[in-house]
Protein backbone atom coordinates (compact mmCIF):
# COMPACT_ATOMS: atom_id res chain seq x y z
CA UNK A 1 0.00 0.00 0.00
CA UNK A 2 1.13 3.54 -0.67
CA UNK A 3 1.68 5.28 2.63
CA UNK A 4 1.31 8.96 3.31
CA UNK A 5 4.53 10.03 4.96
CA UNK A 6 3.79 11.28 8.45
CA UNK A 7 3.92 15.03 8.59
CA UNK A 8 5.78 15.14 11.89
CA UNK A 9 8.67 13.15 10.38
CA UNK A 10 8.80 15.57 7.51
CA UNK A 11 8.70 18.66 9.69
CA UNK A 12 11.33 17.30 12.06
CA UNK A 13 13.67 16.31 9.27
CA UNK A 14 13.32 19.65 7.46
CA UNK A 15 13.88 21.56 10.68
CA UNK A 16 16.90 19.42 11.45
CA UNK A 17 18.59 19.58 8.05
CA UNK A 18 17.49 22.91 6.61
CA UNK A 19 16.69 24.85 9.76
CA UNK A 20 13.24 25.97 8.64
CA UNK A 21 11.13 25.97 11.74
CA UNK A 22 7.99 27.85 10.74
CA UNK A 23 6.26 24.88 9.14
CA UNK A 24 2.68 24.20 10.16
CA UNK A 25 1.30 20.73 10.43
CA UNK A 26 -2.11 20.31 8.73
CA UNK A 27 -2.66 16.66 9.78
CA UNK A 28 -2.03 15.16 6.34
CA UNK A 29 0.01 17.90 4.76
CA UNK A 30 2.56 20.50 5.68
CA UNK A 31 2.25 24.20 5.09
CA UNK A 32 5.50 25.92 4.15
CA UNK A 33 6.62 29.44 3.42
CA UNK A 34 6.74 30.57 -0.19
CA UNK A 35 10.37 31.62 -0.10
CA UNK A 36 11.44 28.27 1.37
CA UNK A 37 9.73 26.26 -1.35
CA UNK A 38 12.70 25.79 -3.67
CA UNK A 39 15.10 24.62 -1.00
CA UNK A 40 12.54 22.30 0.60
CA UNK A 41 11.59 20.87 -2.80
CA UNK A 42 15.23 20.23 -3.69
CA UNK A 43 15.76 18.68 -0.29
CA UNK A 44 12.76 16.37 -0.59
CA UNK A 45 13.76 15.28 -4.04
CA UNK A 46 17.41 14.58 -3.35
CA UNK A 47 17.30 13.12 0.15
CA UNK A 48 17.45 9.32 -0.24
CA UNK A 49 15.15 8.79 2.73
CA UNK A 50 12.34 10.75 1.08
CA UNK A 51 13.23 10.40 -2.60
CA UNK A 52 10.23 12.35 -3.86
CA UNK A 53 11.30 12.11 -7.48
CA UNK A 54 7.88 12.61 -8.98
CA UNK A 55 5.62 15.60 -8.65
CA UNK A 56 2.30 13.91 -9.26
CA UNK A 57 0.16 16.97 -9.39
CA UNK A 58 0.02 20.64 -8.56
CA UNK A 59 -3.22 22.37 -7.96
CA UNK A 60 -4.53 25.56 -6.48
CA UNK A 61 -7.64 26.19 -4.41
CA UNK A 62 -9.23 29.56 -3.93
CA UNK A 63 -10.24 29.96 -0.27
CA UNK A 64 -11.18 33.62 -0.84
CA UNK A 65 -8.89 34.91 1.93
CA UNK A 66 -5.96 33.18 0.35
CA UNK A 67 -4.95 30.85 -2.44
CA UNK A 68 -3.64 27.47 -1.46
CA UNK A 69 -1.21 25.74 -3.81
CA UNK A 70 -1.04 21.99 -3.24
CA UNK A 71 1.89 19.81 -4.32
CA UNK A 72 1.33 16.05 -4.37
CA UNK A 73 4.66 14.27 -4.22
CA UNK A 74 5.36 10.63 -4.89
CA UNK A 75 8.34 8.42 -4.25
CA UNK A 76 8.23 5.38 -6.52
CA UNK A 77 11.09 3.71 -4.69
CA UNK A 78 9.59 3.91 -1.19
CA UNK A 79 5.98 3.84 -2.39
CA UNK A 80 5.09 6.87 -0.31
CA UNK A 81 3.35 10.16 -0.88
CA UNK A 82 3.48 13.56 0.74
CA UNK A 83 1.56 16.79 0.34
CA UNK A 84 3.12 20.25 0.47
CA UNK A 85 1.04 23.37 0.70
CA UNK A 86 1.72 27.03 0.10
CA UNK A 87 -0.51 29.95 0.85
CA UNK A 88 -0.67 33.11 -1.13
CA UNK A 89 -2.54 36.01 0.45
CA UNK A 90 -2.13 38.50 -2.36
CA UNK A 91 -5.27 38.56 -4.52
CA UNK A 92 -4.28 41.20 -7.03
CA UNK A 93 -1.10 39.62 -8.39
CA UNK A 94 -0.38 36.40 -6.54
CA UNK A 95 2.91 34.78 -7.34
CA UNK A 96 4.89 31.80 -6.09
CA UNK A 97 8.25 30.36 -7.18
CA UNK A 98 8.17 27.82 -9.98
CA UNK A 99 9.48 24.30 -9.44
CA UNK A 100 10.06 23.51 -13.11
CA UNK A 101 13.80 23.38 -12.58
CA UNK A 102 13.36 20.67 -9.94
CA UNK A 103 10.47 18.74 -11.42
CA UNK A 104 10.10 19.40 -15.18
CA UNK A 105 6.70 17.74 -14.95
CA UNK A 106 5.38 20.93 -13.37
CA UNK A 107 5.66 22.88 -16.60
CA UNK A 108 2.21 22.36 -18.07
CA UNK A 109 0.47 22.17 -14.70
CA UNK A 110 1.83 25.52 -13.56
CA UNK A 111 0.72 27.06 -16.82
CA UNK A 112 -2.72 25.61 -16.24
CA UNK A 113 -2.90 27.11 -12.75
CA UNK A 114 -1.93 30.51 -14.14
CA UNK A 115 -4.57 30.15 -16.78
CA UNK A 116 -7.46 29.04 -14.59
CA UNK A 117 -6.56 30.43 -11.19
CA UNK A 118 -4.35 33.38 -12.04
CA UNK A 119 -1.31 32.61 -9.95
CA UNK A 120 1.99 33.67 -11.49
CA UNK A 121 4.91 31.29 -11.20
CA UNK A 122 8.15 33.22 -11.18
CA UNK A 123 11.01 31.84 -13.24
CA UNK A 124 8.72 29.64 -15.26
CA UNK A 125 10.18 29.37 -18.79
CA UNK A 126 6.91 29.91 -20.65
CA UNK A 127 4.25 31.50 -18.45
CA UNK A 128 1.41 31.73 -20.95
CA UNK A 129 -2.21 30.72 -20.95
CA UNK A 130 -2.66 27.09 -21.91
CA UNK A 131 -6.32 26.07 -22.15
CA UNK A 132 -7.89 29.45 -22.81
CA UNK A 133 -6.86 31.96 -25.42
CA UNK A 134 -4.48 34.80 -24.70
CA UNK A 135 -7.10 37.58 -24.75
CA UNK A 136 -9.33 35.93 -22.18
CA UNK A 137 -10.27 38.28 -19.34
CA UNK A 138 -10.04 36.89 -15.83
CA UNK A 139 -9.37 33.47 -14.43
CA UNK A 140 -12.39 31.17 -14.38
CA UNK A 141 -11.70 28.97 -11.37
CA UNK A 142 -11.45 31.90 -8.95
CA UNK A 143 -14.27 32.31 -6.49
CA UNK A 144 -14.58 36.04 -6.95
CA UNK A 145 -18.35 35.74 -7.20
CA UNK A 146 -18.57 34.65 -3.57
CA UNK A 147 -16.93 37.76 -2.18
Amino acid at each position, binding site marked *: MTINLSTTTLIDKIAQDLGFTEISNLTDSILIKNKELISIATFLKNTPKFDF*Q*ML*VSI*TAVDYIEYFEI*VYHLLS*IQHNQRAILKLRCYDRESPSVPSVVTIWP*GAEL*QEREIWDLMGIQFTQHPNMKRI*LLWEDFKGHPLRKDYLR
Partner: protein
Amino acid sequence: MPIKTEPTIINLGPQHPSTHGVFRLRVSFDGEKVINVEPVFGYLHRGTEKLAEERTFTQIVTLTDRLDYESSMTNNLAYVEAVELLANVSVPERAQYLRVLVSELQRIASHLIFTGFFLQELGVFGTLLMYCFRERENVLDLFEMLCGARITVSYMRPGGVTQDAPPEFWKNLDDLLNKLPQLLDDLENLITDNEIVLARTKNIGILSPQKAIDSSVTGPILRASGIEWDIRKANPYEAYDKMDFNIPTGSNGDCFDRYLVRIKEIRESINIIKQCIKSIPKKGPIKNSEVPFFLRPESGEVYSSIESPRGELGFYLVSDGGIAPYRCKIRSPSFINLTVLKPLLIGWKMSDLVVIFGSLAVNMGEVDR
Protein backbone atom coordinates in the same frame (compact mmCIF):
# COMPACT_ATOMS: atom_id res chain seq x y z
CA MET B 1 30.29 26.36 -47.04
CA PRO B 2 27.30 24.60 -45.49
CA ILE B 3 23.97 25.12 -47.15
CA LYS B 4 21.70 27.30 -45.07
CA THR B 5 18.00 26.58 -45.11
CA GLU B 6 15.08 28.55 -43.81
CA PRO B 7 12.95 26.61 -41.31
CA THR B 8 9.39 25.94 -42.42
CA ILE B 9 6.69 26.37 -39.83
CA ILE B 10 3.79 23.97 -40.21
CA ASN B 11 0.62 23.92 -38.20
CA LEU B 12 -0.11 20.27 -37.57
CA GLY B 13 -3.72 20.39 -36.59
CA PRO B 14 -6.17 21.23 -35.12
CA GLN B 15 -7.70 19.40 -38.08
CA HIS B 16 -5.22 16.69 -38.94
CA PRO B 17 -5.69 12.94 -39.38
CA SER B 18 -3.30 11.95 -36.63
CA THR B 19 -3.65 14.46 -33.84
CA HIS B 20 -6.16 12.41 -31.84
CA GLY B 21 -8.82 15.04 -31.77
CA VAL B 22 -8.32 18.76 -31.81
CA PHE B 23 -4.68 19.22 -30.94
CA ARG B 24 -2.34 21.63 -32.62
CA LEU B 25 1.40 21.47 -32.97
CA ARG B 26 3.32 24.41 -34.35
CA VAL B 27 6.33 22.63 -35.74
CA SER B 28 9.41 24.21 -37.28
CA PHE B 29 10.92 21.92 -39.85
CA ASP B 30 14.38 22.03 -41.29
CA GLY B 31 13.66 19.96 -44.38
CA GLU B 32 12.07 16.90 -42.84
CA LYS B 33 13.70 17.39 -39.45
CA VAL B 34 11.84 18.83 -36.48
CA ILE B 35 13.76 21.68 -34.89
CA ASN B 36 11.12 23.19 -32.64
CA VAL B 37 7.69 22.23 -31.40
CA GLU B 38 5.06 24.25 -29.64
CA PRO B 39 1.97 22.31 -28.56
CA VAL B 40 -1.23 24.34 -28.52
CA PHE B 41 -4.35 22.96 -26.97
CA GLY B 42 -7.54 23.89 -25.24
CA TYR B 43 -9.85 23.50 -28.22
CA LEU B 44 -11.94 21.02 -26.27
CA HIS B 45 -11.90 22.90 -22.97
CA ARG B 46 -15.34 22.55 -21.41
CA GLY B 47 -14.48 23.73 -17.93
CA THR B 48 -15.22 20.41 -16.28
CA GLU B 49 -13.56 21.47 -13.03
CA LYS B 50 -15.70 24.58 -12.87
CA LEU B 51 -18.87 22.69 -13.78
CA ALA B 52 -18.15 20.17 -11.05
CA GLU B 53 -18.34 22.92 -8.46
CA GLU B 54 -21.97 23.47 -9.38
CA ARG B 55 -23.07 19.81 -9.50
CA THR B 56 -23.95 17.44 -6.70
CA PHE B 57 -21.52 14.67 -5.94
CA THR B 58 -23.63 12.15 -7.86
CA GLN B 59 -24.12 14.35 -10.90
CA ILE B 60 -20.38 14.75 -11.44
CA VAL B 61 -20.19 11.08 -12.50
CA THR B 62 -21.69 12.05 -15.85
CA LEU B 63 -19.09 14.77 -16.27
CA THR B 64 -16.28 12.27 -15.80
CA ASP B 65 -17.59 10.17 -18.70
CA ARG B 66 -16.70 13.00 -21.02
CA LEU B 67 -13.11 13.37 -19.87
CA ASP B 68 -11.39 10.46 -21.51
CA TYR B 69 -14.18 9.28 -23.75
CA GLU B 70 -12.24 6.17 -24.71
CA SER B 71 -12.26 4.89 -21.14
CA SER B 72 -15.21 6.30 -19.23
CA MET B 73 -15.42 3.36 -16.83
CA THR B 74 -12.04 4.10 -15.28
CA ASN B 75 -12.90 7.79 -15.07
CA ASN B 76 -16.05 6.92 -13.16
CA LEU B 77 -14.07 4.66 -10.90
CA ALA B 78 -11.43 7.28 -10.14
CA TYR B 79 -14.08 9.81 -9.22
CA VAL B 80 -16.25 7.58 -7.04
CA GLU B 81 -13.11 6.30 -5.28
CA ALA B 82 -12.30 9.86 -4.29
CA VAL B 83 -15.84 10.58 -3.13
CA GLU B 84 -15.98 7.39 -1.10
CA LEU B 85 -12.72 8.30 0.58
CA LEU B 86 -14.01 11.79 1.30
CA ALA B 87 -17.40 10.70 2.66
CA ASN B 88 -16.25 7.44 4.25
CA VAL B 89 -18.59 5.25 2.26
CA SER B 90 -18.06 1.52 2.10
CA VAL B 91 -18.64 -0.50 -1.06
CA PRO B 92 -20.22 -4.00 -1.16
CA GLU B 93 -17.89 -6.72 -2.29
CA ARG B 94 -19.81 -7.68 -5.41
CA ALA B 95 -19.73 -4.06 -6.54
CA GLN B 96 -15.99 -3.98 -5.98
CA TYR B 97 -15.50 -6.98 -8.23
CA LEU B 98 -17.82 -5.55 -10.86
CA ARG B 99 -15.82 -2.35 -10.80
CA VAL B 100 -12.55 -4.18 -11.31
CA LEU B 101 -14.10 -6.23 -14.08
CA VAL B 102 -15.47 -3.30 -16.05
CA SER B 103 -12.36 -1.21 -15.62
CA GLU B 104 -10.23 -4.04 -16.99
CA LEU B 105 -12.65 -4.44 -19.90
CA GLN B 106 -12.30 -0.72 -20.46
CA ARG B 107 -8.53 -1.04 -20.39
CA ILE B 108 -8.73 -3.68 -23.10
CA ALA B 109 -10.99 -1.46 -25.21
CA SER B 110 -8.77 1.57 -24.76
CA HIS B 111 -5.56 -0.27 -25.56
CA LEU B 112 -7.17 -1.79 -28.64
CA ILE B 113 -7.96 1.69 -29.88
CA PHE B 114 -4.37 2.66 -29.25
CA THR B 115 -3.02 -0.31 -31.20
CA GLY B 116 -5.31 0.33 -34.13
CA PHE B 117 -4.52 4.01 -34.41
CA PHE B 118 -0.83 3.47 -33.79
CA LEU B 119 -0.65 1.22 -36.82
CA GLN B 120 -2.84 3.62 -38.77
CA GLU B 121 -0.30 6.34 -38.08
CA LEU B 122 2.50 4.05 -39.16
CA GLY B 123 0.70 3.83 -42.47
CA VAL B 124 -1.27 0.58 -42.52
CA PHE B 125 -4.35 1.52 -44.43
CA GLY B 126 -7.04 0.80 -41.85
CA THR B 127 -6.68 -2.96 -41.69
CA LEU B 128 -5.52 -3.29 -38.10
CA LEU B 129 -7.73 -0.43 -37.03
CA MET B 130 -10.73 -2.41 -38.25
CA TYR B 131 -9.56 -5.56 -36.49
CA CYS B 132 -9.11 -3.73 -33.21
CA PHE B 133 -12.39 -1.87 -33.47
CA ARG B 134 -14.23 -5.11 -34.21
CA GLU B 135 -13.14 -6.54 -30.87
CA ARG B 136 -13.75 -3.26 -29.09
CA GLU B 137 -17.34 -3.43 -30.30
CA ASN B 138 -17.76 -6.62 -28.27
CA VAL B 139 -16.56 -4.85 -25.14
CA LEU B 140 -18.94 -1.98 -25.79
CA ASP B 141 -21.78 -4.46 -26.30
CA LEU B 142 -21.02 -5.82 -22.85
CA PHE B 143 -21.22 -2.30 -21.43
CA GLU B 144 -24.53 -1.85 -23.17
CA MET B 145 -25.86 -4.95 -21.41
CA LEU B 146 -24.64 -3.57 -18.10
CA CYS B 147 -25.93 -0.05 -18.19
CA GLY B 148 -27.54 0.67 -21.53
CA ALA B 149 -24.78 2.96 -22.76
CA ARG B 150 -21.70 2.17 -24.75
CA ILE B 151 -19.38 5.16 -24.44
CA THR B 152 -20.71 7.53 -21.82
CA VAL B 153 -21.59 4.82 -19.36
CA SER B 154 -22.07 6.62 -15.99
CA TYR B 155 -22.06 3.16 -14.49
CA MET B 156 -20.69 3.86 -11.03
CA ARG B 157 -22.11 5.74 -8.10
CA PRO B 158 -20.60 6.63 -4.76
CA GLY B 159 -21.14 3.43 -2.81
CA GLY B 160 -21.52 0.95 -5.64
CA VAL B 161 -22.63 0.54 -9.22
CA THR B 162 -25.99 1.31 -10.81
CA GLN B 163 -27.07 -2.08 -12.10
CA ASP B 164 -26.17 -5.68 -11.67
CA ALA B 165 -24.99 -7.68 -14.66
CA PRO B 166 -27.74 -9.59 -16.48
CA PRO B 167 -27.27 -13.35 -16.99
CA GLU B 168 -26.40 -13.04 -20.69
CA PHE B 169 -23.58 -10.67 -19.77
CA TRP B 170 -21.57 -13.50 -18.27
CA LYS B 171 -22.10 -15.72 -21.29
CA ASN B 172 -20.97 -13.03 -23.73
CA LEU B 173 -18.05 -12.17 -21.49
CA ASP B 174 -16.90 -15.78 -21.66
CA ASP B 175 -17.17 -15.73 -25.44
CA LEU B 176 -15.11 -12.57 -25.62
CA LEU B 177 -12.44 -13.88 -23.31
CA ASN B 178 -12.13 -17.04 -25.37
CA LYS B 179 -11.81 -15.04 -28.57
CA LEU B 180 -9.45 -12.28 -27.45
CA PRO B 181 -6.19 -14.27 -27.05
CA GLN B 182 -6.55 -15.48 -30.63
CA LEU B 183 -7.01 -11.91 -31.84
CA LEU B 184 -3.99 -10.77 -29.88
CA ASP B 185 -1.91 -13.54 -31.40
CA ASP B 186 -3.05 -12.48 -34.86
CA LEU B 187 -2.25 -8.85 -34.10
CA GLU B 188 1.18 -9.71 -32.81
CA ASN B 189 1.86 -11.88 -35.84
CA LEU B 190 1.04 -8.92 -38.05
CA ILE B 191 2.82 -6.27 -36.03
CA THR B 192 5.42 -7.39 -33.57
CA ASP B 193 7.75 -9.14 -35.98
CA ASN B 194 7.00 -6.95 -38.95
CA GLU B 195 10.27 -5.63 -40.27
CA ILE B 196 8.85 -2.27 -41.29
CA VAL B 197 7.15 -1.74 -37.92
CA LEU B 198 10.44 -2.49 -36.22
CA ALA B 199 12.31 -0.12 -38.51
CA ARG B 200 9.79 2.62 -37.82
CA THR B 201 9.38 2.21 -34.05
CA LYS B 202 12.46 0.62 -32.54
CA ASN B 203 14.89 3.17 -31.08
CA ILE B 204 12.54 5.97 -32.07
CA GLY B 205 11.55 8.51 -29.44
CA ILE B 206 13.49 7.04 -26.54
CA LEU B 207 12.42 8.25 -23.11
CA SER B 208 14.91 7.49 -20.36
CA PRO B 209 13.53 6.34 -16.98
CA GLN B 210 14.94 9.30 -15.07
CA LYS B 211 13.42 11.83 -17.44
CA ALA B 212 10.14 9.99 -17.35
CA ILE B 213 9.93 10.23 -13.57
CA ASP B 214 11.09 13.84 -13.53
CA SER B 215 8.44 14.80 -16.03
CA SER B 216 5.69 13.09 -13.99
CA VAL B 217 4.95 10.62 -16.77
CA THR B 218 2.74 7.76 -15.64
CA GLY B 219 1.05 4.72 -17.07
CA PRO B 220 2.21 2.54 -19.95
CA ILE B 221 4.71 5.18 -21.05
CA LEU B 222 6.49 5.06 -17.70
CA ARG B 223 6.41 1.28 -17.68
CA ALA B 224 7.80 1.16 -21.22
CA SER B 225 10.80 3.08 -19.92
CA GLY B 226 11.47 0.19 -17.58
CA ILE B 227 9.95 1.38 -14.30
CA GLU B 228 7.67 -1.08 -12.59
CA TRP B 229 5.05 1.30 -11.25
CA ASP B 230 1.40 0.46 -11.32
CA ILE B 231 -1.08 1.84 -8.81
CA ARG B 232 -3.08 -1.35 -9.07
CA LYS B 233 -0.12 -3.07 -7.41
CA ALA B 234 1.39 -0.21 -5.43
CA ASN B 235 -1.81 0.90 -3.78
CA PRO B 236 -4.46 -1.74 -4.50
CA TYR B 237 -7.91 -0.24 -4.64
CA GLU B 238 -11.20 -2.15 -4.82
CA ALA B 239 -10.50 -5.86 -5.26
CA TYR B 240 -7.10 -5.58 -6.87
CA ASP B 241 -5.31 -6.87 -3.80
CA LYS B 242 -6.96 -10.26 -4.41
CA MET B 243 -5.84 -10.42 -8.04
CA ASP B 244 -2.68 -12.01 -9.24
CA PHE B 245 -1.12 -10.29 -12.22
CA ASN B 246 2.19 -9.03 -13.57
CA ILE B 247 3.26 -5.54 -14.50
CA PRO B 248 4.69 -5.64 -18.01
CA THR B 249 7.64 -3.33 -18.50
CA GLY B 250 9.71 -2.32 -21.49
CA SER B 251 13.46 -2.20 -21.61
CA ASN B 252 14.26 0.59 -23.98
CA GLY B 253 11.54 3.21 -23.62
CA ASP B 254 11.03 3.61 -27.36
CA CYS B 255 7.82 3.65 -29.37
CA PHE B 256 7.92 -0.09 -29.90
CA ASP B 257 8.12 -0.73 -26.16
CA ARG B 258 5.18 1.55 -25.60
CA TYR B 259 3.19 -0.53 -28.05
CA LEU B 260 4.38 -3.84 -26.61
CA VAL B 261 3.63 -2.88 -23.02
CA ARG B 262 0.06 -2.13 -23.96
CA ILE B 263 -0.39 -5.41 -25.81
CA LYS B 264 0.97 -7.26 -22.80
CA GLU B 265 -1.34 -5.29 -20.53
CA ILE B 266 -4.31 -6.51 -22.54
CA ARG B 267 -3.22 -10.06 -21.83
CA GLU B 268 -2.86 -9.26 -18.14
CA SER B 269 -6.31 -7.69 -18.15
CA ILE B 270 -7.81 -10.86 -19.61
CA ASN B 271 -6.10 -12.70 -16.79
CA ILE B 272 -7.56 -10.37 -14.16
CA ILE B 273 -11.05 -10.63 -15.62
CA LYS B 274 -10.87 -14.41 -15.50
CA GLN B 275 -9.92 -14.25 -11.82
CA CYS B 276 -12.77 -11.81 -11.24
CA ILE B 277 -15.29 -14.14 -12.80
CA LYS B 278 -14.02 -16.96 -10.63
CA SER B 279 -14.07 -15.17 -7.31
CA ILE B 280 -16.93 -12.67 -7.59
CA PRO B 281 -19.60 -13.26 -4.91
CA LYS B 282 -22.56 -14.89 -6.60
CA LYS B 283 -25.11 -12.84 -4.73
CA GLY B 284 -25.13 -9.68 -2.73
CA PRO B 285 -25.90 -6.01 -2.89
CA ILE B 286 -24.27 -3.93 -5.57
CA LYS B 287 -24.84 -0.57 -3.94
CA ASN B 288 -24.43 0.74 -0.45
CA SER B 289 -28.01 1.54 0.47
CA GLU B 290 -27.00 3.99 3.21
CA VAL B 291 -25.65 6.54 0.75
CA PRO B 292 -28.13 9.42 0.63
CA PHE B 293 -29.18 10.97 -2.63
CA PHE B 294 -27.53 14.27 -1.71
CA LEU B 295 -24.18 13.31 -0.35
CA ARG B 296 -22.84 15.85 2.15
CA PRO B 297 -19.31 14.90 3.09
CA GLU B 298 -17.75 16.67 6.04
CA SER B 299 -15.49 19.52 5.10
CA GLY B 300 -12.04 18.31 4.23
CA GLU B 301 -9.95 17.35 1.27
CA VAL B 302 -8.80 14.17 -0.35
CA TYR B 303 -6.60 13.04 -3.20
CA SER B 304 -7.23 9.61 -4.64
CA SER B 305 -5.86 8.08 -7.78
CA ILE B 306 -6.27 4.94 -9.83
CA GLU B 307 -4.44 3.43 -12.76
CA SER B 308 -6.39 4.39 -15.85
CA PRO B 309 -5.33 3.03 -19.26
CA ARG B 310 -3.30 6.20 -19.76
CA GLY B 311 -1.69 6.55 -16.36
CA GLU B 312 -2.45 7.89 -12.95
CA LEU B 313 -5.90 9.43 -12.99
CA GLY B 314 -6.42 11.32 -9.76
CA PHE B 315 -9.18 13.41 -8.28
CA TYR B 316 -8.44 16.06 -5.69
CA LEU B 317 -11.70 16.96 -3.98
CA VAL B 318 -12.23 19.71 -1.43
CA SER B 319 -15.52 19.71 0.41
CA ASP B 320 -17.01 22.50 2.50
CA GLY B 321 -19.86 20.36 3.79
CA GLY B 322 -22.21 21.20 0.98
CA ILE B 323 -23.84 19.00 -1.64
CA ALA B 324 -21.22 19.99 -4.24
CA PRO B 325 -17.45 19.91 -3.98
CA TYR B 326 -15.77 23.21 -3.23
CA ARG B 327 -12.98 22.34 -5.64
CA CYS B 328 -12.61 19.37 -7.94
CA LYS B 329 -9.20 19.04 -9.53
CA ILE B 330 -8.67 16.36 -12.11
CA ARG B 331 -5.13 15.05 -12.42
CA SER B 332 -5.42 13.81 -15.99
CA PRO B 333 -2.61 11.53 -17.18
CA SER B 334 -2.79 12.57 -20.84
CA PHE B 335 -2.29 16.21 -19.98
CA ILE B 336 0.75 15.64 -17.82
CA ASN B 337 2.23 13.02 -20.17
CA LEU B 338 2.29 15.75 -22.82
CA THR B 339 5.09 17.41 -20.83
CA VAL B 340 7.60 15.12 -22.51
CA LEU B 341 6.24 15.74 -25.99
CA LYS B 342 8.49 18.65 -26.90
CA PRO B 343 11.84 17.17 -25.85
CA LEU B 344 10.85 13.81 -27.34
CA LEU B 345 10.05 15.25 -30.75
CA ILE B 346 12.92 17.60 -31.40
CA GLY B 347 15.49 16.15 -33.78
CA TRP B 348 13.27 13.51 -35.34
CA LYS B 349 11.76 13.46 -38.78
CA MET B 350 8.20 14.35 -39.64
CA SER B 351 7.15 10.71 -39.99
CA ASP B 352 8.60 9.98 -36.56
CA LEU B 353 6.74 12.94 -35.09
CA VAL B 354 3.44 11.32 -35.93
CA VAL B 355 4.55 7.97 -34.54
CA ILE B 356 5.97 9.38 -31.31
CA PHE B 357 2.90 11.47 -30.70
CA GLY B 358 0.74 8.43 -31.40
CA SER B 359 2.73 6.30 -28.99
CA LEU B 360 1.98 8.72 -26.15
CA ALA B 361 -1.73 7.97 -26.73
CA VAL B 362 -3.13 11.19 -25.40
CA ASN B 363 -6.83 11.82 -25.41
CA MET B 364 -7.83 15.39 -26.02
CA GLY B 365 -11.01 15.13 -23.97
CA GLU B 366 -8.83 14.52 -20.99
CA VAL B 367 -6.12 17.01 -21.85
CA ASP B 368 -8.43 19.97 -22.24
CA ARG B 369 -11.06 18.87 -19.72
